[in-house]
């Protein structure tokens, strides 16, 4: 088994069992969707449909409905394309690169980050497609035999490289994501009770059964796909940057573009992951799996990539002066001080200054601050592309054709529409798909789960391993970590009740619920949330019947939590009393 240093903070907080992980992830899928989900979905759908309307209008009328002119032939469309592709870089980076580096914290976030990647690349792909003007001739980008004799597509062109890069990236990410999803769909399939979901999920799960040989193949496939996806991630945005770097436009014609675009992509991708996950973990009750430590790790990535981007901006500026090329120099001077100075200033503040704030531990562990910064970064990264594309074009070699770009309402509609569509997809994902990689999270429970980490020997009574990582009191760092965790999860404090206290509390509890005896015992395991172990504990306290359980209220739940100390808040959340009442009615009728 994978062992982890005791001073590392646990990745799964609280006292989770394998079954709890399944419950926590599957419950949002099996329950009815909350009202807020429907509201958000409706809003996203309306915005998305408006965007689709704009696209249809554009296809019917022509690309002229965009706010482009003779000088600025590329503006919002390509800005949005690069922005979305950039966002689509975090998912595969998290699941592939972090897998190769054996970063266990990726496991809680990779599934949703990959989903985000795929949806973002969908949105990105829309722009080149509608940019063609005649969407129905889109297949012309493929090297197909055609009626013009042997006229092939130009394999020397970065635009064609882009076609190959984006489609490879999209399809490989999709496959990577889906292969990881199959075992988790199987989990939902085996829990599903209603016939339609059962049929749906058994189709989606491809008949996965969890055989040892299959898991062996699964792990190899994941590893090899990660190995393949890692250079792919870096190649995709490098190739996107070639669209600009291989041109002869001052401001675009720079060799620094590939690494700088890749860093920028990771930067914006992680910011988007933060935006989505900070909301999702709250809405779906996944705080135990995606917590401060994960957010902090991601913030560190944002800080590092943000610094790379900042360095690249400054290098670019320096080189434009140092190269001695007047055109190059003017392009950058004009960017910073010309009529688009505000876009440049927005880019510099959002992308260079804001990630530097992450050096402060207080700030990078603050969820609210992270959420704000994540949005700021995404705004900044949109402006970066806008600055690169529009400001390099708007004052070209011929001053008489200098111009400004004003987006038309179609420009805005298409862009906002893709954001709507993106959220439509993401909300559907959050509703019907397991948002956590169940099988992966379960595999790190014993090495990185809080309860296992803090009491490693308790669970291995049969096999006492002397080298098990005990939480040494001698190590001050470990103590500190322990304290921090405890303050985060106050209920965990009640673990150490003495035997007398326990007895007294059990007495109080039983006096409230009434006596029960082993003879009239009901099968408490029927109550959802009670397993054989917990049933034993309940019996020990003196709770044997549904009648007793049905009398429980908030006070009793709290008492029970203190006594069992196994699943704080569990009883209340699952409404044991209500369940017990129903069971009583059933057995009476």
């Amino acid at each position, binding site marked *: *088994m*994978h062992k982890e240093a005791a001073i590392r903070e646990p990745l799964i907080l609280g006292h989770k*069992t*394998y*079954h709890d992980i399944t419950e926590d992830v599957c419950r949002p899928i099996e329950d009815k969707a909350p009202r807020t989900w429907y509201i958000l979905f409706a809003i996203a759908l309306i915005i998305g449909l408006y965007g689709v309307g704009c696209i249809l209008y554009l296809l019917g009328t022509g690309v002229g409905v965009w706010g482009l002119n003779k000088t600025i032939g590329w503006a919002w469309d390509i800005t949005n394309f690069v922005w979305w592709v950039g966002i689509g870089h975090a998912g595969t980076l998290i699941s592939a690169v972090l897998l190769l580096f054996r970063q266990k914290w990726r496991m809680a976030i990779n599934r949703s980050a990959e989903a985000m990647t795929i949806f973002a690349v969908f949105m990105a792909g829309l722009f080149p497609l509608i940019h063609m003007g005649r969407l129905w001739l889109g297949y012309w980008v493929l*090297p197909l035999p055609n009626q013009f004799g*042997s*006229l*092939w*597509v130009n*394999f*020397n062109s*970065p635009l*064609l*490289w882009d076609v*190959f890069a984006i489609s*490879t990236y999209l*399809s*490989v990410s999709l*496959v990577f994501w889906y*292969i990881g999803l199959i*075992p988790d769909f*199987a989990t939902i*399939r*085996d829990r599903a009770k209603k016939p339609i979901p059962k049929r749906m999920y*058994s189709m989606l*799960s*491809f*008949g*996965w*059964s*969890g*055989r*040892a*040989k*299959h*898991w*062996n*193949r*699964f*792990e*190899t*496939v994941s*590893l*090899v*796909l990660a190995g*393949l996806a890692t*250079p*792919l991630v870096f*190649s995709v945005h490098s*190739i996107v940057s*070639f669209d600009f770097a291989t041109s002869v436009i001052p401001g675009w014609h720079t060799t620094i573009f590939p690494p700088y675009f890749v860093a920028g992509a990771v930067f914006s991708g992680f910011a988007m992951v933060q935006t989505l996950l900070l909301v999702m973990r709250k809405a779906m009750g996944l705080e135990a799996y995606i917590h401060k430590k994960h957010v902090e790790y991601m913030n560190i990535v944002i800080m590092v990539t943000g610094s790379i981007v900042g360095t690249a901006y400054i290098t670019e500026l320096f080189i434009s002066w140092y190269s001695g090329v007047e055109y190059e120099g003017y392009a950058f001077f004009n960017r910073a001080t010309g009529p688009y100075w505000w876009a440049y200033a927005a880019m510099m503040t959002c992308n260079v200054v804001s990630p530097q704030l992450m050096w402060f531990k207080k700030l990078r562990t603050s969820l609210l601050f992270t959420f704000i910064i994540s949005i700021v970064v995404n705004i900044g990264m949109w402006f970066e592309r806008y600055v690169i594309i529009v400001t390099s074009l708007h004052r070209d070699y011929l001053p008489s054709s200098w111009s400004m770009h004003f987006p038309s309402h179609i420009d805005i509609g298409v862009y906002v529409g893709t954001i709507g569509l993106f959220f439509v997809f993401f909300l559907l994902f959050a509703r019907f798909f397991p948002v956590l990689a169940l*099988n*992966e999270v*379960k595999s790190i429970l*014993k090495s990185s789960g809080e309860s296992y980490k803090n009491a490693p020997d308790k*669970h*291995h009574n*049969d096999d006492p391993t002397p080298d098990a990582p005990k939480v040494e009191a001698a190590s001050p760092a470990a103590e500190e970590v322990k304290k921090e965790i405890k303050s985060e999860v106050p209920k965990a404090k009640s673990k150490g009740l003495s035997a007398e206290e326990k007895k007294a509390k059990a007495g109080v509890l039983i006096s409230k619920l009434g006596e029960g005896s082993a003879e009239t015992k009901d099968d408490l395991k029927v109550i959802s949330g009670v397993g*054989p172990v917990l049933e034993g504990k309940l019996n020990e306290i003196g709770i044997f019947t549904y009648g007793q359980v049905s009398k429980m209220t908030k006070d009793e739940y709290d008492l029970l939590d203190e006594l069992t100390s196994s699943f704080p808040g569990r009883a209340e959340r699952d409404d044991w009393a209500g369940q017990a009442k129903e069971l009583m009615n059933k057995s009476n009728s």
Partner: protein
Amino acid sequence: MADKVIYAMYDDDDVLKDGAKKLVSKGVKINEVFSPFPIHGIDPIIGIKNTRLGIMAFLYGLVGLTLATVGMRFFMIVDWPMNIGGKPSMTYMDNMLAFIPITFEFTVLCAAHGMAITYLIVNKTLPGMPAQNPDPRTTDDKFVMELRLSENTSFSSSELEKMLKDTGVIELDLKEI
């Protein structure tokens, strides 16, 4: 002849692994293990060889590399050489640098998809396949070991059950298939 199968259920992966070790050392053949997540280290115990899918991925990658090279040489050099600013375009080597990005992408495309498709086929996990795990809880938090009586002829079923009980099973099930 109808075969009999014993399903032994555990609620902990390490208990199952230790149990499997004990059983195998006594000469019991374990046919299969079903688990909700990969149990590291179980494969050598129950005699499962490491998969060769990695080698397959490499071969698929080579196919992609070859196809991309041959294809682009044909399109850009043989069939319709493009004159781009008078730059040399008479041989593949002259132009190769410009072909690297697509060669790379196509190699990755073939390796990834070839391996993924092979994986699904050899696993027999395809759309519409029925689930074969003996208990629905094995995709949640339970771990099941499958023993076949036909493969353990030197033991009687009661002997096997007794040995299994010593390894900390939580449920035992005997089924005819």
